[in-house]
């Protein structure tokens, strides 16, 4: 990343976040199919819709910067085969954790680029992703529903 200009740094961070959003958009419909609880299914649907909006907004932001947004992968691998509610919840936690990591990377890129708007977007996104993980983490590991440093795991 040495020699990259401020715009390049911000673009790299945004592309990282977009890649993580692609994974969320792919993952939540699969997660929803394994959840028998109506409330959890509803949350999965809501999360999918929110991530779809975020993905589209990021793609538009990158287009406005004159950059081709990174494309989605053909498929995404969960940590374990998603065959039960528990494995579905674990995948949701992983998706949100990876999104938090991408936003934390954007924080770093924004500091290096000295871009206040990008930094605000990154901090907001990191906090949002951490909050998004709590619902699923409370289901999959109720004794430890939080982590000390979202985005670093």
């Amino acid at each position, binding site marked *: 990343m040495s020699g990259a200009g401020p715009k390049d740094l911000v673009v790299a961070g945004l592309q990282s976040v977009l890649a993580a959003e692609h994974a969320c958009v792919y993952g939540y419909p699969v997660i929803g199919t394994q959840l028998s609880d109506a409330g959890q299914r509803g949350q999965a649907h809501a999360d999918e819709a929110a991530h779809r909006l975020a993905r589209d907004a990021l793609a538009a932001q990158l287009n406005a910067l004159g950059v081709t947004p990174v494309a989605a992968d053909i498929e995404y691998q969960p940590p374990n085969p998603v065959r039960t509610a528990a494995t579905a919840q674990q995948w949701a936690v992983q998706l949100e954790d990876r999104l*938090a990591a991408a936003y*934390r990377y954007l*924080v*770093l890129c924004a*500091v*290096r680029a*000295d871009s*206040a708007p990008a*930094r*605000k977007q*990154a*901090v907001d996104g*990191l*906090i949002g*992703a*951490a*909050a998004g*993980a*709590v619902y699923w983490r*409370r289901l999959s590991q*109720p*004794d*430890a*529903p*939080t*982590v*000390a*440093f*979202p*985005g*670093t795991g």
Partner: protein
Amino acid sequence: MAEISRRALLGRSAVLLGLAAGAGAGFARHVHHRVALPPPPPPAALVQALAAQQSVRAGYEHASGLPAGLIADAQAHRQALRALLELYPGWRLAQAEPAPAAGAPTAGPPVPANRQQLVSAVSALTDQLRHQAEAWPATDPHAVEVAPVLASIAASLQTHRMVLG
């Protein structure tokens, strides 16, 4: 009057010229006094954040029925904030100085006495760290270390607020 030989006169003139040149050079040269200036104090925002965080942590330890993970997170937050402060020589110097007298007032906010106060304290610290993560000067030599850590702690505290209800 004693007669001065030409050689003696030239010699004395040479000596006088040398003295004058030396004195001139001495006046013209800047004398650099090496004075050991103390390092600047650590960023006040970080010191205040650590004090507020210690108050929240004490509130967690007094509260009942909290998930154990919250206290573990708070201990990790404290260590992380202290590690950030260690980046600044002014903090290290302050820590090396003798401790204040016993009974000296502490700088942090009061320890939350009940659940409602605890939620308020966590919310206030979340907002404080969020703001610092967004506004930490990019010109600070440690900005790339400080801002991401403050953002992560703010995110963690946001989840604490959700768990606390």
